[in-house]
């Protein structure tokens, strides 16, 4: 989190990662809606079209199912495609391809074929885009055997995970929270590849573990600051990988703090937070001094007005309150 080096945004870090991959491996290409001439709906790919041309920065028609499936096919055919789906809400149109093909072909073929595909998509709320553009369904992807799922939260992870994902022989889905694109921070000049399977402890603490990922990481860190003021030392765990989950790091933290709160922007019922709570139940029950808490989104399609959107999402005071509650305060 405190690498010295050049300052860049999360968006730029992603762009650098894509640029590097394109330069490094001729099999890599990027495809999706408006990734080329338009520069990407969140401007991640801006400039790459001019640099790499229409074959490698490939604009697609509005056909999420076909171009995602084409990415699977291209991966089978020896390429290393990066498919960009504008937001996770639209990815439902491609979910059949991802679940029924990308995630199963290796198994169904008895290991003969593998699908080295990377799918990137934006997720999350915070921009007042309302009920069809704001959801956090990454937990669904984390449910599917055959997929790997990551959610880089830091500049370093945004820069370093793509290459690792592209080197992976199996399909990897990368979730980029919309509120992170403009965040900036320093990136060490020699910052290299980042593994895509492990969680990271972003802040050490002894009293309660705040377990989170993606856009909620910074809220959790803020909450930890606030808790510090009250003399509560919160540890913050950034999952980074949503599938597989890094049980060792999670249980390591809970084993130390004996209390945990999970922060997850998905709707509460059936959230990824539930899975983590269930795992702590199974693996660390006897170490718990209090029930594990969850701070999730309210069960409502995200409403348009700022104040209602804010109210629907996990916020710092909610995290602070949930952490306090585990300490009986």
């Amino acid at each position: 989190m405190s690498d010295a080096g050049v300052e860049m945004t999360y968006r730029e870090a992603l762009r650098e990662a894509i640029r590097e991959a394109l330069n490094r491996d001729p099999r890599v290409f990027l495809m999706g809606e408006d990734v080329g001439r338009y520069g990407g709906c969140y401007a991640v790919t801006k400039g790459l079209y001019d640099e790499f041309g229409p074959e490698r920065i490939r604009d697609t028609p509005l056909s999420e199912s076909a171009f995602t499936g084409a990415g699977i096919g291209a991966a089978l055919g020896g390429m290393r495609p990066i498919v960009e789906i504008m937001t996770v809400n639209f990815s439902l149109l491609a979910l059949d391809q991802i679940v029924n093909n990308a995630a199963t072909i290796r198994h169904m073929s008895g290991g003969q074929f593998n699908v080295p595909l990377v799918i990137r998509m934006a997720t999350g709320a915070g921009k007042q885009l309302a009920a069809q553009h704001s959801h956090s369904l990454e937990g669904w992807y984390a449910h599917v055997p055959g997929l790997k799922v990551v959610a880089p939260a830091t500049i370093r992870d945004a820069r370093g995970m793509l290459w690792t994902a592209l080197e992976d022989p199996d399909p990897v889905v990368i979730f980029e929270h919309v509120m992170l694109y403009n965040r900036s921070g320093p990136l060490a000049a020699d910052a290299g590849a980042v593994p895509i399977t492990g969680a990271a402890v972003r802040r050490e603490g002894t009293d309660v573990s705040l377990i989170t990922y993606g856009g909620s990481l910074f809220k959790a860190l803020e909450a930890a600051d606030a808790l510090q003021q009250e003399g509560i030392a919160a540890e913050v765990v950034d999952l980074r990988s949503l599938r597989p989950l890094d049980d060792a790091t999670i249980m390591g933290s809970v084993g130390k703090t004996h209390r945990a709160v999970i922060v997850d922007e998905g709707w509460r019922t059936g959230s990824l937070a539930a899975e983590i709570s269930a795992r702590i139940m199974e693996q660390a029950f006897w170490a718990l001094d209090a029930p594990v808490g969850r701070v999730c989104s309210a069960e409502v399609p995200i409403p348009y007005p700022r104040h209602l959107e804010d109210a629907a999402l996990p916020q710092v005071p909610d995290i602070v309150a949930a952490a306090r509650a585990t300490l009986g305060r």
Partner: protein
Amino acid sequence: MSTPDKLHLNRDHALHLLRGMLRIRRFEERCAELYTEEKIRGFLHLYIGEEAIAVGAMQSLTPEDAVCATYREHGHALARGLPMTTLMAEMYGKRAGCSGGRGGSMHLFDAASRFYGGSAIVGGLLPLAVGIALADKLQGRQRVTACFFGEGAAAEGAFHESLNLAALWQLPVLFVCENNLYAMGTALDRSESETHIFRKAESYRVPAESVDGMDVIAVEVAARRAAADIRDGAGPRFLECLTYRFRAHSMFDAQLYRDKAEVEAWKQKGPILRFGQWMQETGMLDAAERDAMEADIAAELDEAVAFAEGGAAEPVEELTRDVYTEPRS
């Protein structure tokens, strides 16, 4: 312009059409300003340049008919008769908005006029339009469901499935494709192998025609003819309206994908410009009348803005209201 019909056009109707288009234009211009002032947030897609389509097509509908549109639907809402006041309040996310403030610009709804708004999933409302029409047919009602969408939507699977269903079951749907040549930054010939969208419709045996979408009369004439056929039980009809958006796709967009000269050339064909000039040439409208019309609309807009400004916000306690049907408090 489609003179034969225009000769029979009476002055009142011409004034009605012009006013309809102007109301949309001014509303959109004001929305753009309000966006800059941060009164309106989220995505905002303006209909400027395309007014002739909504206004022309809506002439063919009765109050019992239904309308489905997209995220670029302020114009359709106004042409359908939704008051400017509740529309503007919706832009503000206020309780008095036409969707109770929950939807914002992309999700305008109005039960009274069977306006099913407002979908931000490209192509997502075509299946719904088919179903609404099916309900009308099954209930023996002579109603039309008009469904507006962009040419970009024609690439989506939902387009294909919906056209086939409507044709197969001979349902009373009027499909109106607003072909403005771009889907965000993707030019039509980069998204479709067949760029004549109406030919696609024909491949489902849906009678289809291509219309000058900058000519309000041409649109009205075609829509009336199509709607009459539909009401006669002849099954679905399809209009491809050739048009152009004069502004960015949404509020932020560097428009690198098209050049200024192209935009300028289309502006010269603008629906309001041409129709206004024609009315003046034929003596239907003098400068003073036009000024009066503008003044009227400006007053209506001021009132709408005042209404929106003065509207109450939804209380945060009501966050999860209307997720399920419950007795309203």
